[in-house]
C-alpha cells in the first residue's frame, strides 16, 4: 500500500486504524484517543522525516506502542484484577460467545502492560515473534515467555470459570 503524502492525508486515511490499534492496546477509549493524538501531534512537526521512512505507519504504531508502555508505567495502579469476571451466562451459543469475548477483554485488561502488548501484537496485528521482539526492543525468548505467561494466566482463570477447555 502506498503511503499518503501529507500529514493530513495520513491521519485521514489511517487515523481510525491507529485508534483501533491503540484501543485494543490500552482497553480504554479515552486513553486510546490520547495516545494517538499525542503521538501524531509530536510527529506533526517532523512529518517530512517520518513520511520519508519505508513505512510511516509502522513508525507511528511503534511510537503509540512505546507511548502506551510509558503511560502504563505511570498508571500501573489502574491495572485491574484478573479473577474478577462476570459469571458466564448459560444460554444460546452466540450470547455465550459474546460474553466469552467480553470476559476475554476484561482478562486482557488485567494483564501487565508488556504481556498485553505482546498478545496484541501477536493476535491482533498478526506479527511474528521476531518482529514483536524488534518492536519491543527485547529478545524473542522474552516475547515467548511473556506470551506464555499471559496465556497461562488467562487459561487458568477461564478454565476456573468454565469458559474454555484446556486448549
Amino acid at each position: 500500500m502506498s503511503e499518503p503524502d501529507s500529514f493530513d492525508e495520513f491521519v485521514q486515511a489511517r487515523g481510525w486504524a491507529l485508534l483501533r490499534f491503540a484501543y485494543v492496546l490500552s482497553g480504554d477509549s479515552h486513553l486510546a484517543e490520547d495516545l494517538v493524538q499525542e503521538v501524531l501531534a509530536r510527529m506533526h512537526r517532523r512529518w517530512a522525516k517520518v513520511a520519508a521512512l519505508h513505512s510511516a505507519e509502522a513508525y507511528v504504531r511503534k511510537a503509540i506502542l512505546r507511548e502506551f508502555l510509558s503511560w502504563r508505567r505511570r498508571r500501573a495502579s489502574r491495572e485491574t484484577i484478573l479473577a474478577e469476571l462476570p459469571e458466564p451466562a448459560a444460554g444460546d451459543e452466540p450470547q455465550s460467545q459474546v460474553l466469552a469475548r467480553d470476559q476475554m477483554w476484561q482478562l486482557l485488561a488485567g494483564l501487565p502492560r508488556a504481556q498485553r502488548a505482546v498478545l496484541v501484537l501477536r493476535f491482533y496485528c498478526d506479527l511474528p515473534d521476531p518482529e514483536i521482539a524488534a518492536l519491543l526492543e527485547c529478545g524473542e525468548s522474552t516475547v515467548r515467555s511473556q506470551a506464555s505467561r499471559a496465556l497461562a494466566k488467562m487459561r487458568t482463570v477461564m478454565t476456573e470459570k468454565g469458559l474454555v477447555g484446556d486448549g
Partner: protein
Amino acid sequence: MDDLEQLLARSMHGAATDAPPDTELLSRVHQRSGRYRRRRLAGQLAGLAAVLAIGIPTATVLTNRPEPSVPLPAAQGLTLRPGFQDPAFPYALPPAAGLRAPVATLESGTPTAFFEATDVRRQADTTVTVTGAKPSITGGTTVQVRGRTGWLRTTDVKPAKQYVLCWQEKAGQWLQLATDDTYTPPQVVALADSLTSAAVPVLPPFTLDWSPAGLSPDTVNASTMSFADGAFSVVLRKEYALPSPGRRLTRDADGVRLEVAVPDWDAVLDIRVGSALTISDADLQRFAAGVHILNRSNPR
C-alpha cells in the same frame, strides 16, 4: 492456535470496532500540535527576547570549551585538530515528573537549556540561559534567589503570562530562567533555587573527525555547527542540485565554500570558511570527509 488463542484474537478484533471514531482526530491533533508549538515558542521567545532584545553581551560561558576563542586577524591560517568535544550546558533542574530531561542548544554564542513540560497541568516549559553580563531587565521586582539578589519580570501576554527571572550566579556569569504562569512567582524562584551544577551536552548534528583548531563553537543545533561567530561553519541543507559528481568548491572574496551532496539524507553539506581564515583545499576536503551526519540532524 488453540481455543483460547482463537477466542483472544476474535475478542480483540471484535473490540477494535468499539474504538473511538476518528471524525475529530485530525482537528484535535492539529490543536494539540499547535498548542505544543505555541508553548514551545512562548518559552523560547521569552528567554531569547530577554537575551536579545535588551542587548546582552553574549559572553562565552560554556563548559568543556575546546579552547578560548581568539580574535581573528586578517587571513589567519587555519589548522585542523583531531576530534571535537561537545560543549555542555552547566546547570540542570532536578528530574521531576512531567518535565523532560533538558535539551541544550547553543545559538549565536548563547547556551540554553530547554526543559519541556509533558504534564502541562503541573509543569511549564522552562528555559534557562547563561550569559556573561547582566541582562538589563526593565521593571520587575527584586527577589532573593539562590542567596543573591535577582529580578523577576512578568510580561502579561496571551495565552499565558511569561516570567523571566535573572540573577548573577557568579562573577562573569548571569543566569536567566524563563517560564510561564503555570507556576506562581514563588514557585519560579524555587525552581531557580533548585538548579544544580551539571554538564548537559549540547548534542551536535554531526560527529567531526576534525575541527578547526583555536575556534570556539558559537552555534550547535540540528543543522549547523559554526565556530568563531560563523567564520567557519558546516550546515546540512535540504537537497539542491549540484554539478556532477555532487561536489562544488568555490573561492571568492567572501572566502571558500565546499558543497557536498549527501544522497542518503536528501541533503547537501555546506561548509564555509570566511575570508578572515585561510584553509587549503586539501584540508577543507579532509574536514568534509570527517563529517559524519547523525540521525538527530535535520537539514534546514
